């Protein structure tokens, strides 16, 4: 477990090659080695979704992903969800409709919402609730998050 390996992967379109412990958590590598601190840790056990990233088109909890598993993968974090200074429609909707309060769940929530809309461009309320079921928010009571998702696709 203490072995270091070279792992090659892409983050937000950029190729990376890093020497890491194979059991290091993707979450820590993103935050500490790549300074991509937009990905948050809420629980470290796959419950809260604050650490959500997209790997090869799938949302995953990066606190549960050992580095050995990301070799050859493409990863999108909150920093790469829209190009440059642009905002993704979901991000804009979260700003306009109160989808973020303290903001700590927001990066994960935005990625989960983006992923949901990629798979299902016009989700029903039921779809939205289920699509976001892996992401916890303690501030909003979720109402404004649901509304933000709806506004993002109705735009």
């Amino acid at each position: 477990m203490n072995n270091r390996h070279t792992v090659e992967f892409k983050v937000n379109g950029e190729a990376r090659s890093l020497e890491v412990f194979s059991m290091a958590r993707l979450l820590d590598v993103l935050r500490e080695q790549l300074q991509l601190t937009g990905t948050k840790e809420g629980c470290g056990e796959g419950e809260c979704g604050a650490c959500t990233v997209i790997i090869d088109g799938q949302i995953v909890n990066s606190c549960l992903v050992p580095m050995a598993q990301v070799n050859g993968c493409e990863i999108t974090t909150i920093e790469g969800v829209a190009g440059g200074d642009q905002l993704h429609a979901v991000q804009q909707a979260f700003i306009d409709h109160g989808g973020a309060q303290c903001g700590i769940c927001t990066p994960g929530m935005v990625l989960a919402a983006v992923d949901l809309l990629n798979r299902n461009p016009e989700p029903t309320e039921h779809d939205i609730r289920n699509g976001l079921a892996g992401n916890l928010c303690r501030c909003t009571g979720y109402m404004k998050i649901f509304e933000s998702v709806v506004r993002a696709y109705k735009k």
Partner: protein
Amino acid sequence: MSPIGKAFPRKEGRKKVTGKALYVDDLSFPGMLHGVTVRSPSPRGRITKISFEGDIPWDEFTVVTAKDIPGANYVALILNDQPYLAADFVNHPEEPILLLAHRDKYLLEEARRNVRIEIEEQPAIFNLEDSLARKEIIWGEDNVFKKYLVDKGNVDEVWANADFIVEGEYETGAQEQLYIENNGAIAIANADKGVTVWGSMQCPYYVHKALVKLFDLPEEKIRIIQTETGGGFGGKEEYPSLIAGHAALLAWKSGKPVKMIYDRAEDMVATTKRHPSRTRHKTAVTKDGKLLAVEIDFVIDGGAYCTLSPVVLSRGTIHSAGPYVCPNVRIHSRAVATNVPPHGAFRGFGAPQSIFALERHMDKVARTVGLTPEEFRRRNFIHEGETTATSQVIRERVDMDQLLTRALQLSNYHEKRERFARENAESNGRFRKKRGVGFATFMHGAGFTGSGEVYLQSVVSAEATVEGVVRILAASTEIGQGTNTIFSQIASEALGLDVDLIEIVQPDTAHVPNSGPTVASRTSMVVGKLVESAVTGLKQTLIGSSLLPHEYGQSEFKRACAEYIARFGSLKTSSTYQPPPNVHWDDEKYQGDAYGAYAWAVYVAEVSFDELTYAAHVEDFVALQEVGRVLNPVLAAGQIEGGVAQAIGFTLFENVVWKDGRMANNQMTNYIIPTPVDIPPIRVYFEENPYAYGPGGAKGIGELPMDGAAPAILNALENATGVSFNEIPLLPETLMVKLL
């Protein structure tokens, strides 16, 4: 166009949705070490031995014990009874004893597990009943941190002649705040420059006050900076003083920056929670349903140290008699000690506990008298000119009758009540869902209790730049509730400038004055008013110096600022708290004007109860409230929705499992908070009635939504099942036992 009442987007929203907002764990400094806390292995006893074991390079570690503390070994707050590090005796099973720091956080974790602490155990008590019964004296002479007695009229003269006397007992459990960002702090400290701490917190000046004592340094040598804060709900009111102090002690000894971030398990097991409570009611009523006397015995479990328990108890006490008039009221209340980690601030601050009891009890009294819950309350609602339990004369227009009528309409209450009764009866004998509706009517006082605001003497400053930007300097923190945006709107309104020209300065005790703690639903109403007067002072200074005409536009304002600064060097004004007129409070008798203003509300819940799984589910929720003027409808609704969701958790999901004074389910996997699939539509409505002494007419709002949901839900469950439940959290297990 006035910015008040407009849905301005959250000021720091862009940073938050792009992941650029920097929370404490996102910061790092060159040469930084990580710090951890070694805690007591048992709930109560004498520390006999500490040994450093295992195959650990101990000489690489910074180790701090009580002996290393340069100043006083207590967390300065109310009674100063809680040590930063236990020196020879522990009073709860997570009490900090020793601190460790190292560069490598993985090695640090291993080291923590290899510190062995031996305790000569002494008997401990873990619940408020045992504490009241003095099974063991663990604090002071009688285990009591604080007690109050509110006495209005004379209840003793009433009992003998009352048509009905109704008694009841109600209990609420501990609740974890569960902000998604755990507690954390980073410190740099040395004798030369003093101590600087960055951290996730609600009250920078609480931390400041505590660290001045801990290090015995002059005030200017302690600097506290609030980083973006991922939720607080009270959980970051007093606790940050502890973790900030720990990080600073390690930094002081090691000479290096030290970061201390709790993981979820440690945050849940060791930090504060909502006080568990037990309330007894005895009520005398006439046969036509008029309240004659109310006697309330309210007890909260404070945990091992006093922390904020006296103030939590105070708010719970004052709110325990609700928005009703009664000529004779006696409330005894006590906060008692147990050997569990200290309980602390959590949204509502004692009021959700005592309001739960009251609003469950009101339904019981109504039933006994033979009135509907609605009619009984209508006969007793307080009106303008009448007095509360503390003999406060209500001087604002309040119309609970109208609020109730509207809330019952919005929720279709009467129609549902009738339909559910029919459907539930039809379903008898077959397993299916039963449904019910219930409501609660309540009030919540904004700001500090009694003379609290006068003692605080909060200050806000405003400063103009040559570009005509107005910077607001206050220690009030943005914790997700919208401080930045609300302050900008208030300043923008007072100055007639664009909200974008208002800048909210990051709370940093080196730069901002003490505007008081960010608690008690006081930030918009009390501190917002200071923002309004500080910027008004700025404007008047410019007008007074003839640099600005009475009517002006943005460019004239900018020119005037530039000119003033060129002539006089800077332009800054401050404003200090002034109480509204005619506010009197007697701390001894606990009588008088407890709060400057109250928010009034009626919450209605519809629940279903599944006879097969014993699960109760909230199907629909209407939250109607009068909070003065609504400053920002999206933020205000967001506060209510979030609070109601937490209150639903408090009622039906969130169960702290205690084992010998320690939380046994300290993981998100088995302490369940509501997820996106658990929450019903929360329908939020406001009734607007501007408050003369609030900025733009606003009153406090943040804690209110925590108060009403629990009793409304249990009242609805009683309506659905015909069985009365008086304890929360109410889990399917409990429902099954009672209904089988």
